[in-house]
């Protein structure tokens, strides 16, 4: 059982990691090597949290 758990966890993480960068252009080529990429858009959850925090601040 432990074997299955360890295999499932690590394999899922490998697959997620590959899929996360799969469509990114800077995987194969960087126009200026070493240049920091532009700030990524906040995820939906982060945006929601930020909105909520803003709302609370306004209410206060």
């Amino acid at each position, binding site marked *: 059982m432990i*074997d299955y*758990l360890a295999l499932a966890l*690590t394999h899922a993480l490998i697959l997620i990691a590959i899929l996360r960068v799969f469509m990114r252009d800077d995987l*194969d080529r960087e126009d200026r090597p070493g240049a920091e990429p532009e700030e990524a858009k906040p995820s939906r959850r982060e945006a929601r949290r930020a909105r909520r925090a803003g709302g609370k601040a306004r209410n206060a």
Partner: protein
Amino acid sequence: MRGAQAERRAMLDAALFLFVMTLFALGLRRPFVWVLAYLYIDILAPQKIGWTLTPMLPISFIAFMLAFAGWALVDAKSQIRFTLRQGILIAFLGWCFLTLQWADFPEDAAYKWEWVWRAMVFAIFLPFTLVTRLRLELALLVVTLTAGAIIISSGLKTALGGGGYGSLYFFVNDNSNIYESSTLSTVAIGLIPIIWWFMNHGRIFPPDWRVKLFGGAFIFACLLIPVGTEARTGLVCIGVLALLLLRDVKRRMTFIVGGIALVLMAAPFLPTSYYERMGLITGHEQDQSASTRLAVWQWTYEYALENPLGGGFDSYRGNKFEYRLPQVSENGSTTTVEYKDVVDEARAFHSSIFEVLGEQGWIGLFLWVWLHASGLWQMEKLRRRWRGREGASWQSPLASALQMTQVIALVGSLFQGIAYQPVILLIIALQCGLWTYLKRCEEAAAEPRSSRRRAAHRSEPQRATSASNAARSAPASEA
């Protein structure tokens, strides 16, 4: 019950097969995934875990060929650089091929050569593909997580009370690759600095509470491997890692006190068999394994003096020696020590230095030492050069982590014949990748500056001409 187990194994086999096929399919769109597939197959050997579907195809060979083909057909070659260390590896590979021609045991040597050349060729090739930061990180992540599958499962088993020297069960139990107790211990401890780097500087999985939680548990599993396998090398590696970390930690005293507290807290939970085995580190006189080592090393040194060009792979098979081993027996209150003659033959080298010396002679040893020494030096150079640079937070820590991993691998190498271990060769390849990538970064950063300078240089004569024109025209205007 047995039927249910067989069904579960069949499911696992199908899942692993599907995973490999998914990687192959993803590679059609992004061929770099084939490189990752090879890294994964090389470390985990899924074809040995499954027993029907995965062994059906030569997946390791397919991934090897696809990785090369994908790079040759699709990747931009303008970004690649050839490094000195890849050159050393090529020379080492060529030399290994030469020693094969005069090997003492041609059949055994040919068998070892079969996997050694592949590991070395891939290590030479891998840096060519690591042309972006994302690729570098992804390759490192796949290596870490794949080894993590074995480490996490073995760590959990140890935590739940399994283990013991030679009795901790892995997915594959044939002592191949990193499925060998001492090798796994060395690799597990060596990966800790890399996991730590991912917990602080990862970009694919940006460090948040989930990454920190998983990373922390992963490091704990790594630390449990030397306990579970009861491999003495692992304990030595942990000690060396603690010393290395002292160099980078901000609060040294807190680190030392914390480390001592952790050891004291963990001590009561360690099994008695562990203490017994670790006790043999110092009292090696009664231990056949340690006595054999010393005898083999002595034999190898003398063999290399007689055969300076080496005896080819597996030349240890020719060794034979006798030595006296003390046998302690307790009878009531009296302890008697008897000396027994022990005859040993065909004992493995038990040290990478002597493995290379015995197999590849002094030339091979020189190349191997050069390969590793240059790696330590290069990583140290990167560590210092990139430390504290503005907007460059990840480079220096990564060089530091890869250097620590290499030092731990070298410490493990002192007691095991792992000179051609594929995972260690992959770490060398990743170091070469980081070295060339950062070199390109520096050149790219210097380019605008030098082009500005060139532009300034070009405009200077113009300014000078216009100034002289102005000087010439001035009297005229005054006139």
